[in-house]
C-alpha cells in the first residue's frame, strides 16, 4: 500500500474539511474545500483511497503545493 501526499492546488484557507480520517474516498471525491479570492475550490482525490492523515484544519492558511493530507492507495 502506497501512501500518497495530497497537495493543495491553490493558496488560500481551508474552509471545510468534508472527510474524516479512516474514510474510504472514492476516486474523484473531495476531501476538503479551500477558499481563496472568494472562490471555493474542492481538493479532489483523483485515484481514491483511504484518508490516513490531515495536515491542516478548518481555518488554516494553505500555500499552493503544500502537503495537506495523506491517502493510502
Amino acid at each position, binding site marked *: 500500500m502506497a501512501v500518497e501526499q495530497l497537495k493543495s492546488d*491553490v493558496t488560500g484557507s481551508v474552509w471545510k474539511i468534508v472527510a474524516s480520517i479512516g474514510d474510504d474516498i472514492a476516486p474523484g471525491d473531495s476531501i476538503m474545500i479551500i*477558499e481563496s*479570492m*472568494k*472562490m*471555493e475550490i474542492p481538493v479532489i482525490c483523483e485515484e481514491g483511497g483511504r484518508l490516513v492523515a490531515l495536515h491542516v484544519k478548518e481555518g488554516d492558511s494553505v500555500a499552493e503545493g503544500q502537503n495537506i493530507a495523506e491517502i493510502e492507495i
Partner: protein
Amino acid sequence: MMKPTKILVANRSAVASRVIRALNELGIPSVAVYSEADKDAPYLNQADDAIFIGESPAAKSYLNEDTLFEAMTRTGATALHPGYGFLSENPVFAQKVLDAGHVFVGPSPQWIEKMGHKTQARDFAKSVGWPIGLGSELLPDDDQLVIEMARSIGYPLIVKPAEGGGGIGMLVVQTEDKLLSAVERARSMAKRGFGSEALYLESLCLKPRHVEFQVIGDKYGDIRVLFERDCSIQRRHQKIIEEAIAPGIDRSLIQTQCEGIARGLRTLGYDSLGTVEMLFDTTGNFRFLEMNTRLQVEHGVTEEVLGIDLVQSQIRIALGERLKDVLPDDLSPQGHSIQARIYAEDSKRFYPSPGRLQAFEMPIGKNIRVETGYCVGMEVTQYYDPLLAKVIVHAPSRSEAMTQLITALRQTRIEGISTNIEALIRIIQSEHFMSGNVHTGLAMEVVQEANRMST
C-alpha cells in the same frame, strides 16, 4: 452650521481609485481607508486622508462597521461612498450611516432592501409589468414541496440565493435526481456568502445573453435609463468582458425596455444609481434577473459611449442636486466601448493566483482607460476578489474597439502571478465574439476548447 462635505470611500482597489478620482475632479475632500494588505495601494495618496482600518481579512477591515464609523468621526467625514461589494448593498448599514447624520452615497435603504431580496425584487418587477421568467417562491424546508415546485418550473433549472447577487452561490440542476443535493449545497453557500439560507428556483434560459440597463434617479422623483450593456462574457457567472452597446439587438427593443424600466422605477422613487439586469433569450425576449442598487464594475463602458461621468453624477445626486442639472437631456450612445477585467487567476482553470506583483505595466493610449488599485510590489492576497485592473476602450465601431482592446491587453505586462489575459484575448478573437454572437456560456466554451486543443 453644516460641516463642509467630506466623503469617506469605504472600499478598496479599482473602485476606491475610481471614486477618489471623481471626488478630486469635483473638488470634494476625500478619505481613503486601507487594510494591512492595501497599505501600499497607489490611490491612497490621491485622497486627502488615508486611514488604516485593520487586518487584511475583510471582516476585520472593509466590513468592520465600527472602525469605519470611527474613521468617519476622526476625519470629520460627512458622507460615505460604499463602492460595490462589501457593505454597498447592506440596507442596515446604509440606515446606520443615515442615522449617524451622514450622507450615504447610494439609494435609500428601503430600495437596497427591496431589491436585495431577490424574490421581492421579482414580485416588484412583475407588479410594474417588467418581463419575468418562470420562477418559484422561497423554498420551504419540505423536500417534497421543493420537488413539486421544481416540477412546475421544469428542468433544467437554477437554484439561487434569495439574498444573493453577483452570480454567487447559484447552481444549475439538470434533472430531478440532482435537485435535493443541489438545494442542500446551495443553502450552505448562501448562508456563507450572504448570511441567509433562503433560496428560490428559476427556469434556466439556454444560451441567454446578459443585457443590463443603467438607471439613475435623483431625490426628487426623476429617473433616467441610460441605455444598456451586454455582459454575456462570464466565467462562474461573473462577468469578465462587458460592452456598450449590446451588439445586434434591435434598438427599438432596447428602447421599449428602457421606457418600461423608467416607468417602473418612477413608481418607487428610486434615488441613486442602479442597474436592472435582464436575460435576453434566443427568441428575442427579455426577462428580469435582478436589480443591483449600487455602482457596477462595468459602469465605465456606459460612461464612454455617452460621454458622461456616472460616479460624479451619483455623488452630486447624493448631495442633493437634480438629475436635470447633472446630466444633459439628450444622450445617445456614440461608438462602442468594451471593458476587459484582468483577474489574478490562470487562463486555463481560472484558479486564484495570489502573490507579489513583480511587474505591473498597464497599457497606455488615447482611447484606453485603465482602472486599478494595484501597483508593482504590492501583494495580491487571497482575502479579496481577484480583480487586478479594468481595461476599457472606446472606438467608433465594435470591430475597432475589439482590435484596440486586444492591443491593449497584449501591451499589459503583469509578472509574479498568473492572469486571465491570455483567455481574454482568446475570447475576444473567437469567431462568435467577433460576430457579436455572444451568450453566457461562450467564454467557457472558448476556453475549454482551447484547453482541449493544447492537451
